[in-house]
């Protein structure tokens, strides 16, 4: 077990040594500061801090998913493109364990980035709209529940992160199967931009099979107010459909990685 943690340490080392990490952190921090400062100058600090945070989350969270996908798809594909996969696979670890260490550290990276994103949102907007501003506090973020603001945020982020996990898993599969991160990143962009914004429209199409399409269930934030969304679907049903897809994706990824002849 300790030995397996070493594999994860290795993967983390490779992710965090790569120079792109600082670019990613810089972009996230710069975007948050830019939007908050513009907002602050326009309304002179009248808006409540929580309102700014939830709005910026809606506009910017997809960047967290995209960066997590870039890192996750690179973790397998880059080992193939540089040839280091050969050195990695000739150690006394079977391929399933190597792949698992990569998958776990990909999810850890996504979690790390989501936390960094939330922390910078909280910090920057606390400074702008609480310390410097004079916005009245919003009693309730959610109009239909009695949740506290932090509880609401916590649940909202949890649901967003489930979407990230699913997207990272799909990209991880694509990059393992095709040994290229381009397709994986394109797929993630498609999910983030098209699916998460337009799929609600698909829900109005009255075919039974629509209910089982993966994309319909990827955006879970509609359940933030309760376990039944406005379109009548339940959180349990969405999670079950996602769960089935998840198991299929993971199985495919592992089977193909184990069977593949490494010839590059």
């Amino acid at each position: 077990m300790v030995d397996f943690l070493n594999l994860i340490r290795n993967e983390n080392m490779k992710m965090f040594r790569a120079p792109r990490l600082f670019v990613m952190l810089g972009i996230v921090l710069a975007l948050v500061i830019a939007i908050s400062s513009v907002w602050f100058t326009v309304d002179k600090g009248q808006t409540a801090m929580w309102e700014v945070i939830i709005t910026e989350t809606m506009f910017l969270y997809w960047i967290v998913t995209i960066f997590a996908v870039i890192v996750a798809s690179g973790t397998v594909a880059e080992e193939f493109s540089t040839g280091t996969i050969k050195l990695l696979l000739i150690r006394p670890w079977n391929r399933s364990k190597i792949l698992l260490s990569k998958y776990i550290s990909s999810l850890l990276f996504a979690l790390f980035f989501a936390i960094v994103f939330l922390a910078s949102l909280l910090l920057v907007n606390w400074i702008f709209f609480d310390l410097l501003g004079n916005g009245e506090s919003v009693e309730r973020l959610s109009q239909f529940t009695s949740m506290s603001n932090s509880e609401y945020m916590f649940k909202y982020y949890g649901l967003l992160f489930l979407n990230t996990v699913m997207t990272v898993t799909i990209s991880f599969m694509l990059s393992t199967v095709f040994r290229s991160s381009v397709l994986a990143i394109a797929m993630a962009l498609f999910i983030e931009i098209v699916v998460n914004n337009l799929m609600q429209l698909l829900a109005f199409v009255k075919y039974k099979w629509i209910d089982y399409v993966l994309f319909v269930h990827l955006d879970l934030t509609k359940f933030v107010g309760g376990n039944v969304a406005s379109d009548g679907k339940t959180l349990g049903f969405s999670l079950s459909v996602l769960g089935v897809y998840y198991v299929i994706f993971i199985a495919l990824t592992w089977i193909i990685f184990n069977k593949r002849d490494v010839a590059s």
Partner: protein
Amino acid sequence: MGKPIVQLQGVTKRIGSRTIIDNLTLDVPSGEVFGFLGPNGAGKTTTIRMMVGLMSITSGDILIDGHSISKQFEKSIRHVGAIVENPEMYKYMSGYQNLIHFARMIPGITSHRVKEVVALVGLESRIHDKVKTYSLGMRQRLGVAQAILHKPKLLILDEPTNGLDPAGIRELRDYLRNMARQEGVAVFVSSHLLSEMELMCDRVAIIQNGKLIDVRSIQGSDNSAKSLRILFEVEWPESALEVLAASGLTGISEGAGVIAIEGDKELAAQVNESFVRSGIKVYGIRADIKSLEEQFLEMTGGEGIG
């Protein structure tokens, strides 16, 4: 020679309907440097990939220290250190971080051992620099370092002299021979530099089109008693042939003042004496031993050597 460390037993690899490796059987004992020769596309790299479990084996099996690479992968690969093709490393990390990365993957490698290996390959001064600043020769050394970290019983090197300068090749050669002699490591080397293999290996296997053509020892000086083709370079070949005929020997004129006779070392001395006594100047005497390259070209029908 010790017990076999690696055993290839009827190894066959088919991709689609194409047979890439056909029923390959060979053993490499501990303490031996074993060369693996063949023209481009003969299946050298494919064989090596199967030996380290990067490719599946269609039929047959490969045993390393008695464990099957396909069925007991983790047990058998533990004894293997390898560089497959180029020594690729994580270029954005330092050489030391690269070694730490691989050391973590095998239990029991101390930081002391890492330092020892760094010293062994002579990279102390640059080990904390990023790998992208290394020359090809330094990357090759780092590649060797990662391969021997865990003191493997079998060291597999695919084209190890690629990109090394003559001094580097010589150093690697001495190092590999030392590993084999002193630590009893079996060294499995593929290369296209035939003359290099001749200097480095105890035995070589030659494969072509995925089939094993020949396995032979590289002879040292143990052929002194054998009959050789001896070449004399003399002043007047015609009179030299007459001198030979007078003592009942047949010489063949090879042109350019060279005559060939069949015989052993003793005969060479006697013939030389009779030439000198007859007033024929002898400029040179040498045994006509076919180089590995000539033998190789003969066997593979002169196809290009990669």
